[in-house]
């Protein structure tokens, strides 16, 4: 029976529980959140039933296929869902929890399916549910940021759909696997996926939308969308060289914008772009080593970013803000556990030896070196060093230790609710931090889960020495420049300017009903920037030529015109060799 088989698919189970989750009574929701993800994790690793197929529209869809890459991503996603929702239980809305389950279900579904159509279904589901999570943030700009986020992701979905359509139309197999380069299908699918990975020119959506989510919402968001894109890139676009410049751009973009940012959660968001860029470069090079490294690093990145974001979330819950200038310094002694976890996470992000990304990042770097990519290797080395300037050094410093900029902020810190989280939330944070360390201590356990056999040995004298050098220099530079780079109360322009100002200004203009006022519209018509918009409006607006009610007589006249032109056209077309439209349309 297919319907019972569906319950073997972890993604489907999560989605099916996610839909009613928001409506369950609190105790039931709580127990599902605590028990379901570990059970599914266990199920994934013990399942031996083989692939699950269905036939849909004449295509054979593979709903469940356990590849080693997919299993690795799915497992870490499952852990992210579990820890994230434990952390969220304290104050997240039921809607957010339900959406998170659907969102994670989509991500896990993608990792465990093996055809493009199923992937696309999950893909759209992720876009919708993650938008809901952004909206659940209920911050000042959550609403509009969510809209921008949705718009971009739907556009990406459209590109992906067109690509998949082209793939099917070309008679290609819809199985999820390495795509042959070239052709519309290849580029459209790549564009759709890169959009989700935060590639230029739309990299801004990560830092635009994520920090608008709730403290726990951002934990979910950081884990799934970009990393799912990385998974698909690994599966289908390994070795696509175009990814290398894109990845380099993202890595540098992430560093620079993070440096200019004052909101600690936005710093982390930019750091996501930076790290995903790092993974993209690895995928683009596409040797077994770099692919291994990309996967391993994705796992490490999800884990430490989660810990850091939980820490930022705790601060946000306590103080109600995440702007560095308002945090009021010296938070560390008020929340020792959080500080410890953040420090572990930060260390892991920098790749301090015996933490997770030390054992993963160096796989990528040595892979790059072995592949003969000297220039890229240098750039990536710099990028990995400059992590100190965002997630690694600057973030904990701004969040916990930096002196306050405003006197009002100091009093905030003394409020009684500024404490460590309790119970499950603390447990989730500690579990994440612990995993960061465990991976660092026992790298072979992670390596053994990678698809290509890895012979990398992280703990050699040379490796440790090189990492210490990097960190020492970067750390020293950070300490020297920390005052110069202390954030000012400002924002930094990005390509979202076009969405937020150029497009939205016109959009707001008509939705606010200005359009109905005739005098005003004439006035606007004369201003040059409105002219092109007015053209659309004259044609399509509520009183536009194409929208208004016509006189019956003029429609009837129109009919006569149509009749005449149809007869003429048909007659002309009927003359052999004189096929007007055929020639007009060029076919």
């Amino acid at each position, binding site marked *: 029976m297919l319907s019972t088989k569906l319950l073997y698919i972890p993604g489907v189970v999560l989605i099916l529980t996610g839909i009613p989750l928001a409506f369950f009574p609190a105790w039931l929701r709580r127990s599902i959140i605590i028990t379901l993800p570990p059970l599914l994790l266990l199920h994934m690793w013990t399942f031996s039933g083989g692939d699950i197929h269905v036939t849909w529209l004449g295509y054979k869809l593979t709903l469940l296929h356990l590849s080693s890459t997919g299993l690795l991503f799915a497992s870490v996603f499952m852990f992210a869902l579990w820890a994230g929702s434990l952390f969220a239980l304290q104050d997240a809305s039921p809607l957010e929890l339900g959406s998170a389950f659907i969102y994670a279900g989509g991500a896990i579904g993608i990792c465990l399916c093996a055809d493009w159509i199923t992937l696309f279904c999950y893909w759209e589901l992720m876009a919708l549910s993650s938008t809901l999570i952004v909206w659940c943030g209920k911050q000042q700009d959550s609403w509009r940021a969510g809209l921008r986020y949705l718009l971009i992701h739907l556009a990406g979905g459209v590109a992906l759909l067109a690509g998949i359509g082209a793939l099917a139309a070309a008679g290609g197999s819809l199985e999820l696997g390495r795509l042959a380069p070239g052709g519309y299908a290849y580029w459209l699918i790549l564009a759709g996926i890169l959009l989700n990975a935060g590639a230029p020119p739309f990299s801004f959506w990560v830092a635009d939308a994520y920090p608008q989510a709730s403290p726990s919402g951002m934990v979910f968001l950081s884990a799934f969308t970009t990393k799912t894109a990385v998974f698909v890139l690994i599966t289908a676009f390994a070795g696509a060289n175009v990814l290398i410049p894109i990845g380099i751009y993202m890595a540098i973009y992430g560093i620079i914008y993070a440096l200019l940012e004052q909101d600690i959660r936005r710093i982390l968001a930019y750091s996501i772009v930076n790290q995903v860029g790092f993974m993209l470069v690895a995928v683009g090079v596409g040797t077994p080593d770099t692919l291994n490294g990309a996967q391993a690093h994705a796992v490490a990145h999800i884990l430490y970013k989660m810990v850091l974001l939980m820490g930022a979330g705790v601060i946000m819950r306590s103080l109600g803000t995440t702007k560095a200038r308002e945090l009021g310094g010296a938070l560390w002694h008020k929340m020792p556990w959080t500080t410890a976890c953040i420090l572990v996470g930060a260390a892991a992000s920098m790749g301090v030896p015996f933490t997770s990304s030390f054992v993963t990042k160096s796989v990528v770097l040595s892979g790059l070196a072995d592949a003969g990519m000297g220039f890229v290797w240098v750039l990536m080395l710099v990028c990995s060093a400059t992590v100190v300037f965002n997630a690694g050094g600057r973030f904990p410093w701004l969040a916990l230790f930096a002196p306050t900029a405003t006197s009002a902020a100091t009093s905030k810190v003394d409020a009684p609710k500024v404490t460590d989280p309790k119970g499950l939330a603390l447990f989730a944070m500690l579990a994440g931090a612990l995993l960061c360390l465990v991976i660092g201590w026992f790298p072979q356990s992670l390596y053994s889960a990678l698809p290509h056999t890895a012979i990398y040995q992280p703990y050699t004298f040379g490796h440790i020495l090189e990492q210490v050098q990097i960190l020492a220099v970067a750390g020293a530079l950070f300490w020297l420049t920390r005052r110069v780079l202390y954030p000012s109360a400002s924002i930094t322009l990005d390509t979202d300017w076009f969405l937020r100002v150029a497009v939205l200004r016109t959009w707001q203009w008509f939705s606010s009903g200005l359009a109905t006022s005739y005098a005003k519209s004439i006035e606007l018509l004369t201003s040059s920037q409105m002219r092109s918009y007015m053209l659309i409006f004259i044609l399509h607006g509520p009183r536009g030529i194409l929208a208004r009610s016509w*006189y019956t*007589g*003029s429609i009837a*006249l129109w009919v*006569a*015109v149509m*009749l*005449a032109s149809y*007869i*003429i056209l048909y*007659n002309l077309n009927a003359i052999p060799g004189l096929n007007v439209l055929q020639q007009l349309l060029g076919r």
Partner: protein
Amino acid sequence: MELIIDITLLTFLGLTALAINRIDKLFCIIMLSGIYSLLCASLFVSMDAVDVAFTEAAVGTGIATVLLLSTIGATDTQQRSAPQRPLFALLVVCATGAILVYGTMDMPAFGDPDAPIHHHVAPRYLEMSQQEVGSDNIVTSILSSYRGFDTLGETVVIFTAGLSVVGLIGFRGMQKFGDRQRAAGITQDDMGKHLVLRIVIKMFIPLILLFALYVQFHGDFGPGGGFQAGVIFASGFIFYTLMFGLDAAMRVVSPRTLSYIAALGVLTYGGVGITTLLMGGNFLDYNVLRPDPLQGQHLGIFLIELGVGTTVFSIMVLIFFAFSSRKGLRQ
């Protein structure tokens, strides 16, 4: 000779159409459209389509004119100025017309005996209908038997028209109107004062009704049938209403009763079909109604024509009542 008559009639037809377009007095337009229908009917006669001519005369010239007249009672008599510039429209229509003339050049010539329509289905009707249906009037046998289902559809169209008027205007206005008239002691319209007319009409009405019945039952043998009969029967009632007032007419037959009769008419037609189904034939296969197929056909055609007649009659009167009562409300 026939050609000259055709040309004359067509010229008049064109002139009338032009006149209708030019004049903006609604009353004149209605009168002219009556004339237009009459000219059409004459053309049909000259084409030997007597049944069609009969229907056109009864419906187009007769009842449609009366209905339109009763409508302008509720509106203005002057047309408001047209919103369009007519010159452009004229150009477009002329151009389209020219193209249409070009487009129909391959059509079989008028009255061409070799035209395909005379060689495929029509001969069979001409040769076989006598034996298969048994009716002397081939038109009737085509309408009621060969294409009886179309006629059922047409009956439903008439029924729908009536329902539309009832649905959009409703009964309530009429009943109120009746109540008010009674309260004011008015029993007749102003027309009632014309003594001569009253007496003549009184004499005519039975004749009209009788003629309608003749047309109804004579459809098998000559021009006639349910549609024409229903219209003529209804015009008798309309005469009565015009002379003696809406109230009096409604006392003879109320709108509600009329709607029942209309529904029953359609049901009669459909019922014959259902009966044939139940008796083992196809829908509207009259052959099975009686042991002798020809007798079955005869019975079936008789019944369905009755259904058509009652429906047409009641709907026509109903529409007239509805429009007249609107006029009453306005006053």
